[in-house]
């Protein structure tokens, strides 16, 4: 199958790659652009570790093809900090112990940023429901909810 040219603005920078149409957005980010912050967990849309923002909306990067996103703007975990200054939700995850092993954390944080932007972080119960697409096998949920609550309160 012939490679196709795809240009995606990733974290504010236009990036062009040539990829097989089978390439998921997740594999394009990790294998072609070497942005390995976005994690491959289940690779079937169940765990949320691959959550990225596409045109501002959180989606599972594993369940979409890179060729579907020619011209789109993608934000990954690498695009949240400003220089050395962490995004407020990144700082809140550290403050609140929102992780143990850290594998799900990039997806949790990107999803959490969207959760706050959507206005779905007004209570612990609401955060639980709207973060249900992100699984944490270490069970750091209490810290994750505390971190999102803290960042939502500040923003």
């Amino acid at each position, binding site marked *: 199958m012939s490679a196709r040219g795809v240009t995606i603005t990733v974290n504010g920078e236009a990036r062009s790659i040539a990829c097989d149409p089978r390439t998921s957005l997740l594999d394009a980010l990790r294998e072609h652009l070497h942005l390995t912050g976005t994690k491959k967990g289940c690779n*079937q849309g169940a765990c949320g570790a691959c959550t990225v923002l596409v045109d501002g*909306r959180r989606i599972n990067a594993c369940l979409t093809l890179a060729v579907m996103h020619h011209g789109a703007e993608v934000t990954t975990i690498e695009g949240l900090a400003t220089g050395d200054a962490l995004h407020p939700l990144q700082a809140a995850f550290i403050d609140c112990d929102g992780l143990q092993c850290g594998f799900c954390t990039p997806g949790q944080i990107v999803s959490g940023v969207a959760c706050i932007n959507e206005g779905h972080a007004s209570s612990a119960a609401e955060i639980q*429901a709207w973060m249900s697409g992100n699984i944490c096998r270490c069970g750091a949920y209490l810290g994750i909810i505390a971190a999102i609550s803290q960042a939502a309160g500040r923003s």
Partner: protein
Amino acid sequence: MFPFSFDKVSTEDEALRAAAAGGRFLAGGTTLIDLMREEIEQPRHLVDINALPLAEIRAEGSDLLIGALARMADVAGHPETLRLHPLIAESLLEGASPQLRNAASIGGNLLQRVRCPYFRMRDAACNKRMPGSGCSAIGGLNAGHAIMGTSEHCVATHPSDLAVALVALDATLRVRGPEGERGFPVEDLFRLPGETPHLEHTLMPGELIVEVWVPGGPPARKARYLKVRDRASYEFALVSTAVALDIQDGRILGARIAAGGVGTRPWRMRASEAALIGKAPVREAFSAAAELAVRGARPLSGNHYKVDLLRRTIVRALEMAGEMT
């Protein structure tokens, strides 16, 4: 994943031509790409239809019209959905995760394939995946499977929450294809498995769902979706029901009841609806209606619990709807 060719189309004519040549439509991709990776689906040519102008959500009088490419999240949060058909918003938000709801289209939601584990297990017999190979669920793990509309060839439930609400609300689909445009009830989209479980829907080859039309009226106002499942969110239904009541002067003038998680397609309970007409909206009447709903249920070895759970879910949902002002 097997190789395929890929085209992005910008007009409906292009889309229909590509489909007539054997292409498969690709919208959100959340079901199709997953199944392609598992090699359960093996399309040779994908037609990306996301650029078509079919994502509009609008009101026409008291009716709600939903473009087939509207995303689950956008329909659930749209002011006209919340004003005219909060039941639809409720059913959508009970399904999937926020990430999936941002990606998945309404047309794709209705056409999503079953969640029977044997369908996804390539070394297991499955008549849906490989006609004639047998059904592993009937003698296997079947706690999540159907108790109505089953056949000796397939017992998988239809997984959509939205479809249950649309069937309860008498929604209609508008589709376009090589033969032009036609409309039919959402309920008629879904086939019973019978002897041909690999045939799941009634679209003709190359037809494209363009819009869902949901009539307004009294049932829209007292309507609830109740979903019972193994965890509180992001899980498929064990049993779900969409109910709607038209109550005037303390009597039920109209009732709609449909269930998910129990049928091989979204299951409308017309005998239960008829039994409620003229009755006061009280538990006794709801229980009698629920009793009729489970008549004819054929539980499998692992899902006898669904019979009683369906009864109780219907009663509870009717009470919740009756309490709405």
